[in-house]
């Protein structure tokens, strides 16, 4: 075993990249949950985004178009969930599970001819001399554009929820849909938009895995990241900045266990690979004492005539 092979600076730089898929998916889910919708289909939307982004990138040669189409793919799939929960008034837990099962199926169907292909590489953002600053340059200024897009989305969601009227309405719908309805807000329309935003973010997060992290397409490659993202929203008490913190924590654990595998530590690979899931459980246990911050109408069906 050679722990000195793990360079802390590279580790931190890598964890920022490792955290990005979780960060994107969790931020999208946070918006949906703040609007009162519990969408358990994150895993399904991520994997659909992963495959659609991959296919488009391979065919167009442009990762940027791939990411855009991954967002569209995730949002399209989330419309199914929106239809079930907002129009057909179905149970949100069951509908979310349906979305995940369906997404896993449709993605492996779409991707069957794309196994083993390498996608076009997305170049890092050119910060010029900034990336030459020792330590900081490598940590902050040596990433692909999507890392910064992710951070931008978190900042955007935070400002929108906290300072704008649109954010206030969204939160009102999530806290008490009957009151919001009585004030004349279109609860279903707002929720559908929030669900689609969640789908778009999850789709991009999935594409980040298939286009940048791995980069390849394999069936079921998201391997539970969508579920970790769901746990992260609880962990973050529905606050955007804490999602960022949590995503870096999980990114760090994922990256560290990969590095430990590489360094040939005496723990078997399988037990190291378990660690992100076990840590998720532990963190959930520690934080589940405080339920007070959950949006008041989370997971409840809204039907106007009641």
């Amino acid at each position, binding site marked *: 075993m050679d722990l000195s092979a793990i360079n802390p600076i590279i580790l931190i730089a890598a964890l920022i990249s490792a955290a990005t898929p979780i960060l994107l998916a969790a931020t999208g889910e946070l918006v949906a949950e703040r609007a009162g919708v519990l969408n*358990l289909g994150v895993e399904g939307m991520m994997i659909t985004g992963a495959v659609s982004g991959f296919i488009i990138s391979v065919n167009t040669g442009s990762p940027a178009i791939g990411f855009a189409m991954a967002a569209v793919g995730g949002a399209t799939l989330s419309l*199914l969930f929106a*239809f*079930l929960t907002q129009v*057909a*008034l*179905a*149970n949100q*837990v*069951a*509908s979310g*599970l*349906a979305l995940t*099962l*369906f*997404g*896993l*199926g*449709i993605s*492996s*169907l779409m991707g*069957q001819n794309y196994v083993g292909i390498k996608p076009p590489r997305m170049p890092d953002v050119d910060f010029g001399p900034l990336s030459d600053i020792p330590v900081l340059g490598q940590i902050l200024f040596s990433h692909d554009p999507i890392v910064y897009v992710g951070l931008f989305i978190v900042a955007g969601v935070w400002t929108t929820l906290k300072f704008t009227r649109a954010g206030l309405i969204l939160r009102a719908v999530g806290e008490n849909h009957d009151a919001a309805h009585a004030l004349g807000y279109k609860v279903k329309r707002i929720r559908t938009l929030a669900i689609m935003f969640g789908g778009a973010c999850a789709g991009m997060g999935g594409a980040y895995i298939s286009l940048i992290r791995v980069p390849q397409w394999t*069936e079921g490659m998201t*391997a*539970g990241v969508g*579920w*970790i993202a*769901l*746990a992260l929203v*609880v962990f973050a008490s529905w606050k955007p900045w804490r999602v960022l913190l949590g995503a870096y924590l999980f990114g760090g654990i994922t990256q560290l266990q990969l590095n430990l595998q590489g360094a040939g530590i005496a723990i*078997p690979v*399988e*037990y190291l*690979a*378990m660690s992100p*899931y*076990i840590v*998720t*459980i532990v963190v*959930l*246990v520690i934080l*589940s*004492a405080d*339920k007070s911050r959950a949006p008041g109408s989370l997971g409840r069906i809204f*039907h*106007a*005539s*009641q």
Partner: protein
Amino acid sequence: MIRFEKRPQPSRLSSLATPLLAVMATMVFGGFLFAVLGKDPVQSIVTIFWEPLFGEFAFYYRPQLLIKGAPLVLIAIGLALGFKAGVWNIGAEGQYIMGAIFGAGVGLAFYPTESFWVFPLMILAGAFGGWMWATIPAILKVKFGTNEILVSLMLVYVAEQFLASMSLGLLKNPEGFGFPGSRNLQQYASAHNTDIIAGSGMHWGVVAALIAVIFAYVLLARHRLGFAIRVTGEAPRAARFGGVNPSRLILFCLGISGMLAGLAGMFEVSGPAGQITIDFNVGYGFTAIIVAFLGRLHPIGIMFAGLLMALTYIGGDIAQSQLQLPAAAIQVFQGMLLFFLLAFDLLTNYRVRIGSSEFLT
């Protein structure tokens, strides 16, 4: 203008009709999907639903119906008890794996002793493995209020890694020339889950599934605990006033569903699968969620739903070899079924009214 009006009571007729409507809609849209994939839609549907039952080789496929249906029904019965009470165990796949590892582990520990007691001990171990794995989220939920959906699901990934470690390590066949995977239990008479009537597909897992159906039916229809489950699901507040202990109910629902999933895994590994391998699990734990909903969370319904889902697995295999239909298409098909079921459920809980209301605008 179409409006939905909540029914005071869910409609019994619609409740029975929606699964049938959903199956029909899935066949139609599944046909579209197959057409998009360049296959003859009618022929595909016939291959999936007719061929296994009445086709030329039906004598071979009919026993498969029991072999594939039994684990689905076993798992779905347990899940349905929880779903009815609002306890969401979606980690049955992990409990299935742990049941298989524990069951096979006990069997392999006795190898090559031939004794009548080996198989019953394996059954107990399998049930324990599944129960234990499901009790983790149950205890965390009772003690700390942790969300059981996320914990039970995380444990699926942990169990998958554990399975990989077992089939490469502790349970690896010492005479297996270094290949991953355990000894084949089919070649160890005391541990082999054989057909009770040769060639019928009727192994002990099928018997267990039937017992589970009857047990769940009696529990829900006649027992106080079943009543507590139903009340908790429909009106949690009323249940608490009625003296239902929510913690015990959570422990029971998760425990029993884990136990049944563990049994399913154990019967699978000692019978049809034969050995512990890295990719031993094939997703029964997730498909069983669809089975539970398709069966309306009712034991008898689940039995039929399990058989129907088994049919799509077998028919899917046939369509794969005869029509080169991709395996994933069947997965999409099954997912679609759950979608349509949830969508048509609107008719069970709501009345559709056309025209505007006098009271609401």
